[in-house]
């Protein structure tokens, strides 16, 4: 987390980096094993982490 006088940044903002390294396909299908009726991808884990 980076904090300055006016702005607090909560995260590392690594989405672009993940595009280059990503795509292994080992992670969970989004709604498969929890909700079954709506799609949220951002709450999943990366299997590589």
């Amino acid at each position, binding site marked *: *987390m980076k904090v*300055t*006088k*006016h*702005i*607090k*940044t*909560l*995260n*590392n*903002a*690594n*989405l*672009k980096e*993940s*595009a280059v*390294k*990503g*795509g*292994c*396909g*080992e*992670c*969970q*299908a*989004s*709604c*498969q*094993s*929890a*909700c*079954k*009726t*709506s*799609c*949220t*991808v*951002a*709450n*999943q*884990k*990366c*299997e590589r*982490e």
Partner: protein
Amino acid sequence: MIHKYKLNGYNICLDVHSGAVHVLDDAAYDILDYCDETMSEKPPEKMFEELKDKYDREELEETYAALFELYQEGQLFSPDDYEQFADMMTRAPIKSMCINISHDCNLRCEYCFAAKGDFGQGRCLMPLETAKKAIDFIIANSGTRHNLEVDFFGGEPLMNFEVVKKTVEYARSIEKKYNKNFRFTITTNGLLLDDDKIDYINKEMHNVVLSLDGRKEINDKLRVTPNGKGCYDIIVPKYQKLVAKRGDKDYYIRGTFTTFSKDFTADVMHMKELGFEQLSIEPVVSDPKLDYSIKYDDLPMVFKEYEKLANTLIEMRKKGEYFNFFHFMIDLNQGPCAIKRLRGCGCGNEYVAVTPQGDIYPCHQFVGEEDYKMGNLNDGTFDNEMKLRFARANVYSKENCKDCWAKFYCSGGCNANNYQYEGDILKSHKVGCELEKKRLECAIMIKAALADYGVDEGSDCDSGDCFAECC
């Protein structure tokens, strides 16, 4: 592209294409209106002119400089570089499967998208031979993928539990030979749970989804037996026993809210009071003409309720109490990669559903839609053209997604909902989109609030949903 919003006293800015989340003071929040993808080191005169009554020139200059620094670091108005990746994984292996082990159910829930258990195809159970063919199919089509997910679904899977057990046994007997790791899950209404089944599920199932709508009067209004009686009193003690014996393995108490239960925070809290911590309540999937459907006009009330639930979660976390709400889980640092986020759930491409008759569909919500039958396990047919159509359904091929701030969080939404409500898998389901965006705004605000109270440092933990308790 950015998305800025105010919620619960926080000024939040999401930089869509870097994923950065900033919490801003009022000056920075207001100055953002004068910034865009072409911002330069020198602030625009219009900004000084229009904001002079709220902030002095020095503060405006200083704050603008801080925002420009973020811009230079690629954390504000960062460019959209992702379309080049949109066609990655179009020929992906199939690694997830929903096995509709039972097209029969011992409940008659009013809102069931499976037409009260049989998907409109007649009540029947999947024979073991078909289930084994499903396991063979996913192994044969999973390429080099190691982790294979199989969910036993229905109808009610416990009505065919012996076949569930034998299917698991079969998969376990061959997984090492093919260098696979099966992760089984089961989704149940709980009526047939007993001690043996609880022990088996807790041993073999990676995750278990237990259906309950919350308060007794809410649950029993729509989740009823064939003779019209509510199921709450039967299932709750069984769920409590299962969860108590489950240890740290995953589970969800999963409910549905309808227009009759738009005050669903009370249902979430009721689940918590029953001793459950992993909770999910979802909007009903149903024809908008039905009286219990969530309609566009219901959205303002549902939004307020999500805010109430978010605030309840924050207040509990501040007191050291814990529950997890599935749709408020978000990992701002180590979530799925951008490639995954482009294409979402992978239905019809990486994920399929199979029926007791061996028919293959893009996902469990397409079952019974004849135009979307992809093939059959018994005759060996499989429509690779349809697989490719689903593979190409990504946030850049969906007309409403490309310019939406939430595209890397919902990843294009639910293709089945898009088809059912909008008639096209590439047309976003509007009510679903609005609900998803509201949940995301709440989820990000929760992160800001917990960071503020020192409860969370922004998801540096493994799961992203524990709010640092596990770290």
